[in-house]
């Protein structure tokens, strides 16, 4: 083991401030990215897990929300490889529980997501188990994410009120957490009974199933040529990527992230630099004795640079540990965190850069290692 690494391990307390500063800098940025990306992922959870091969959106919108004419559906069917087209329908509804004695009454707006509870349907998320599908087939039955039960004040088997009618909470699913409004899944039939579904002239997004999913990219292009800018077809990957990119076009998010990045780098550099300086000064006589024995200044500089590199690595490990904690905490409150690989690589580079810059700044104090001072 090298001198730098041994010193870091042996005197880890001395370096803790720097390691934590680096970890906090990394955590600040990464948890923010993770939160935004996680929220984004939550919003698209139903899309990500739908068996649709293509999404067809209004021509000018990447997100979900704006609408397109229903007559786009027959247009899409004109392509020979399209086998199923269904609107993705999301509505808002008022939810109220029937509080049992001692339980508090809950009233909350919920997102209603309409599915067709038939195995293989394009609107049915592909991770819904058999019993959930069967449960959804019953009129007035609804399904919610397990983490939403408390927020909605119900448990499986309870009744609740939606838009003034009574529904049965028949089952739960996992992996559909929501920080804000809970998601409630129901069949198209139930939605009609609750006056949540109509066959109006406009629809939101369309989910499209193809004969051969492997040809999704090609068919998307062909549909777009066919559609004459009336709509835009996306493969799932393209849409996910676009949604991520779109999120970072929000100036608020970019400003937040940029600010955190600058604060993180600043704190990281200052604390790591000061820590390294202190550590070098604490060993200055040892370094001077190496100088006396003929070790060049360049070689001592290398020791310090290696040391700062390892401090960066330790900071990175610490970031990882803290991040696991933060993620667990976030999950506990129903907030999904998602860290894309690029964000992890960026943070790794950022921390190592901070460490190396701090190392370079600290090299000055090595000049104090005058071997002649050891002669007394």
């Amino acid at each position: 083991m090298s001198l730098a690494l041994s010193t870091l391990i042996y005197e880890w307390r001395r370096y803790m401030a720097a390691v934590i500063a680096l970890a906090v800098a990394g955590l600040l940025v990464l948890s923010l990215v993770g939160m935004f990306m996680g929220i984004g992922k939550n919003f698209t959870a139903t899309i990500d897990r739908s068996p649709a091969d293509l999404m067809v959106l209004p021509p000018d919108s990447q997100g979900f929300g704006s609408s397109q004419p229903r007559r786009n559906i027959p247009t899409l069917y004109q392509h020979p490889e399209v086998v199923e087209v269904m609107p993705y329908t999301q509505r808002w509804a008022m939810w109220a529980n029937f509080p049992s004695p001692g339980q508090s009454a809950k009233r909350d707006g919920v997102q209603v997501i309409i599915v067709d509870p038939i195995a293989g349907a394009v609107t049915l998320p592909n991770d819904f188990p058999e019993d959930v599908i069967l449960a959804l087939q019953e009129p007035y039955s609804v399904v919610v994410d397990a983490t939403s039960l408390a927020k909605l004040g119900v448990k499986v088997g309870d009744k609740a009120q939606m838009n003034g009618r009574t529904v049965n909470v028949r089952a739960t699913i996992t992996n559909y957490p929501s920080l804000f409004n809970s998601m409630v899944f129901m069949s198209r039939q139930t939605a009609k009974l609750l006056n949540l579904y109509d066959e109006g002239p406009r629809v939101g997004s369309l989910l499209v199933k193809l004969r051969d999913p492997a040809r999704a990219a090609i068919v998307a292009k062909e549909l777009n040529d066919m559609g004459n800018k009336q709509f835009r077809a996306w493969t799932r990957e393209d849409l996910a990527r676009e949604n991520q990119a779109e999120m970072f076009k929000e100036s608020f998010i970019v400003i937040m992230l940029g600010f955190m990045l600058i604060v993180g780098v600043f704190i990281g550099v200052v604390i790591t630099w000061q820590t390294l300086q202190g550590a070098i000064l604490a060993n200055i006589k040892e370094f001077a004795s190496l100088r006396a024995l003929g070790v060049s200044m360049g070689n001592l500089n290398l020791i310090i640079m290696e040391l700062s590199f390892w401090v960066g690595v330790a900071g990175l490990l610490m970031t990882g540990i803290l991040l696991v904690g933060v993620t667990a905490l976030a999950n506990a409150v129903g907030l999904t965190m998602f860290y894309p690989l690029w964000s992890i690589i960026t943070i790794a580079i950022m921390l190592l850069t901070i460490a190396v810059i701090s190392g370079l700044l600290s090299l000055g104090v090595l000049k104090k290692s005058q071997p002649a001072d050891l002669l007394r």
Partner: protein
Amino acid sequence: MTGKLAIEAKGLTKSYKIGKIKQPVLKEVNFTAYHGQVTMVMGPSGSGKSTLIAALSGLMKPDEGEVIALGESLWKKKKAKIDQFRLDHCGFIFQGFNLFPALNATQQVEQVLKYCKVKKGEAKKRAVQALTEVGLDKRLKQTPSALSGGEKQRVAIARALSKNPQLLFADEPTSALDSVSGQVVIKLLHRAAKEHGAAVIVVTHDPRLEAYADRVIHMEDGQILSDTFVNRPEDVPPSAPHA
């Protein structure tokens, strides 16, 4: 090698400026040291002993004068070359031990050998050998915090000896040690001269160490007052060069 001239210094002059007053510390000192000999430099505090060693070993440039070390004019070299010269030929032992707290005894020695371009396996072997030579074969894996003062100084000696220096400088190597440890240390320095043929130059206040000296030089006020051979090297005629 033994008995041959190792260092020859002529007209070494050094002064420090304190405010506007120039205070001379070395006054045209002439000095020689021989291979295989322990040369002891003694004298009152402030007489310039440490300054002399610094000038002889390439640690501090004198204002005037010349040092011929192992046949090379030391202060005519560039800085990097002086570093290289020390790496190749010089060992140092200071009053403080200056060991890295994180490294065990073997690693302290290996650390230096690494910069002497000694291969890993070979460095390990030489480190163990040097530590065994100073009687620390039972302490190879101990860090400085688990070593006594005398043991620490012996690690420092092993570190200095492991690269087989031709010139060994020691400044008050025993003054932080009890007398028994001090004896051990001076015996080791003595052996470095006798067995390895190094020119050993020891600055000390400790009169008990005189028993191990081949030559005793007394300094006072930046000048050499007396220079006495206990064992005269063959090269030196009885009319010894005298400062």
